[in-house]
């Protein structure tokens, strides 16, 4: 209802100059697409939609005042080259037919239904903002963290700034053997000199400077042939100065013979892992190791009953082989003393709007090649579509897939482009009446400049702002 009346009075609403972040386009007859989420999935989907047709208008809505999602908040501080993709996204944002609207919480400030009324197509690219719980007793004790939050803490996610992990213990246990687990291990073990010139948050740097952690165990429920990390991250762990590997030779029994039949990536990864069995420099003060076929069953509290002092692991047998091998728990248990436990067993998407179908078992939006089930005009791309795995290139290919499906639907008439849709003008007006002010891309650039300015005296590429209010104040100054 509201959208229809606004469409009619669009011409009368003059205060919408802020909505027209585009440079005065006269061709208002092209398809209007809304992308929910300003991370890699959102930007790559937008990029393809803009490239394939000369008349698409794409608006990207992002909850935070700052764009780029996990490229900003997930990629490790010591992987700056991976963040180069931000330049591609910036180009997309600067495109005359694209506009970015930060500080908009879709699901709360505006509903998906309202977006669907204002746009020909809406793409959900809002990723995975929660984490998979271990689901074991003691998980809520002090000293236990989800990797998502720990990474968020050193990468400057505003919601994680008060995490204050206690790093005074000697041993840290990480559950999970994917790239996030290895990133956490590497950040815990890296010499400070290596981290000082990155965009790691200052409070994390200070905490790491005082860290007592000397030993990191990276625990997985299956075996060496099922580790989910990629070779670059494993190599980096092995190359850390002043750290040695402490692997157990017994864990690799029978692996050597299987090597020749493995596909190349798994073969190279396993060969590198086996090289680590020989340890390395005995004078190294720190160590890391992989422990296999173990699942966490309980976090053990210390004397005061409030802090984690250890973790109880169940030993598993492996049934089957290769990528589909299954961990079957036995009754054998093993306790490991440790003061820091980081659960890195996966991110998880959550529903942001009750009107959008959601598969609670798989924690994704149910879809067919990106077309959301039972909801014409609604699409999805990235982790919310496929689940929270893969590198940026995976998300890129997936987003291109979704964009192609949308373009196909435009071609075939599945999306009726003859209907005029008001797009951002209607949504901006709605947000205004609700007291929500958006952050334009040019306003993010003010935040960006300020972060770079603050990083300079410390020799860092930037010092990330940690406070949403401060971001907004600078954006709108």
């Amino acid at each position: 209802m509201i959208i229809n009346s606004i469409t009619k009075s669009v011409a009368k609403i003059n205060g919408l100059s802020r909505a027209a972040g585009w440079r005065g386009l006269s061709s208002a007859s092209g398809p209007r697409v809304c992308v929910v989420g300003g991370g890699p999935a959102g930007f790559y989907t937008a990029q393809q939609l803009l490239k394939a047709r000369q008349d698409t208008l794409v608006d990207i809505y992002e909850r935070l005042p700052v764009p780029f999602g996990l490229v900003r908040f997930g990629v490790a501080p010591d992987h700056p080259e991976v963040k180069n993709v931000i330049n591609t996204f910036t180009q997309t944002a600067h495109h005359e037919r694209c506009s970015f609207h930060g500080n908009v919480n879709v699901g709360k400030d505006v509903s998906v239904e309202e977006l669907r009324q204002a746009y020909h197509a809406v793409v959900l690219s809002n990723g995975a903002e929660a984490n998979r719980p271990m689901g074991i007793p003691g998980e809520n004790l002090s000293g236990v963290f989800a990797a998502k939050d720990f990474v968020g803490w050193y990468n400057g996610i505003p919601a994680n700034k008060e995490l204050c992990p206690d790093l005074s213990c000697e041993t840290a246990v990480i559950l999970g053997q994917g790239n996030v687990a290895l990133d956490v291990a590497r950040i815990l073990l890296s010499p400070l000199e290596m981290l000082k010139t990155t965009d790691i948050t200052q409070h994390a740097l200070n905490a790491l400077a005082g860290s007592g952690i000397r030993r990191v165990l990276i625990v997985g429920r299956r075996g060496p042939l099922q580790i989910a990390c990629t070779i670059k991250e494993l190599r980096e762990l092995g190359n850390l100065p002043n750290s040695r590997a402490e692997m157990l030779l017994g864990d690799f029994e029978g692996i050597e013979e299987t090597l020749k039949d493995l596909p190349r990536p798994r073969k190279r990864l396993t060969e590198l892992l086996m090289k680590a069995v020989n340890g390395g420099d005995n004078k190294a003060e720190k160590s890391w190791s992989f422990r296999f076929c173990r699942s966490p069953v309980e976090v053990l509290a210390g004397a005061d009953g409030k802090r984690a002092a250890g973790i109880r692991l169940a030993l598993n047998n492996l049934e089957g082989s290769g990528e589909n091998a299954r961990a079957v728990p036995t009754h054998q248990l093993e306790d490991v003393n440790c003061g820091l436990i980081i659960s890195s067993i996966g991110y998880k998407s959550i529903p942001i709007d009750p009107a959008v179908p959601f598969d609670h078992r798989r924690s994704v939006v149910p879809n067919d090649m990106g077309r959301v089930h039972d909801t014409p005009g609604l699409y999805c791309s990235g982790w919310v579509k496929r689940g929270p795995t893969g590198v940026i290139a995976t998300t890129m290919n997936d987003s291109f897939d979704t964009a192609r499906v949308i373009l196909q639907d435009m071609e075939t008439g599945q999306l009726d482009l003859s209907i005029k849709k008001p797009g951002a003008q209607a949504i901006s007006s709605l947000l205004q009446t609700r007291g929500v002010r958006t952050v334009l891309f040019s306003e993010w650039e003010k935040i960006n400049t300020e972060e770079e300015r603050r990083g300079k005296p410390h020799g860092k590429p930037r010092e990330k702002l940690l406070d949403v209010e401060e971001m907004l104040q600078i954006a709108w100054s």
Partner: protein
Amino acid sequence: MAASSAVRASVTFTQRFVRVFPDCSICPLHRLNLCTGSAGASFSAPSVSASGDCQKEDTQEQVVHVVFIDRSGRRKSVKAKVGDNALYLAHKHGIDLEGACEASLACSTCHVYVKSEFCDKLPAPEEREDDMLDMAPMLQENSRLGCQIILTPELDGIELTLPKVTRNFYVDGHVPKPH
């Protein structure tokens, strides 16, 4: 309006930031010192060799012919010069090859297949390139990262095929036309 639309349609995404006042600081060509300074130049200035051979022959020696085969199977022949980087050559000619990490061996988005007879003429990949290739979907024996291919005279005639990486590619290679 129509004319400028036509121009825009023929310009690749990476080139869009070259506007009236180009911002060189964000251009990958500039950052990697690969900028020729002018949009269409494929030949370096002819030079007279020490032995005084005619200028035309020298110009020919600098040229490397490259064929890109895009994701829909279309062939595009381009003229490059010795020293050109295959990824940026692709961008210059509107070939749809991504380079997310901007040639820093931190991704696999510029993955290409090299025509087999040219594989041995390329220097073997360094370990870092192999590590990134391991992450590329549909890895083959003749897979390389486009950003690591620097053109030499021996590579004249090389063909680089873009893998069909997405599940949803139009079966008949149809590309939607703008209305």
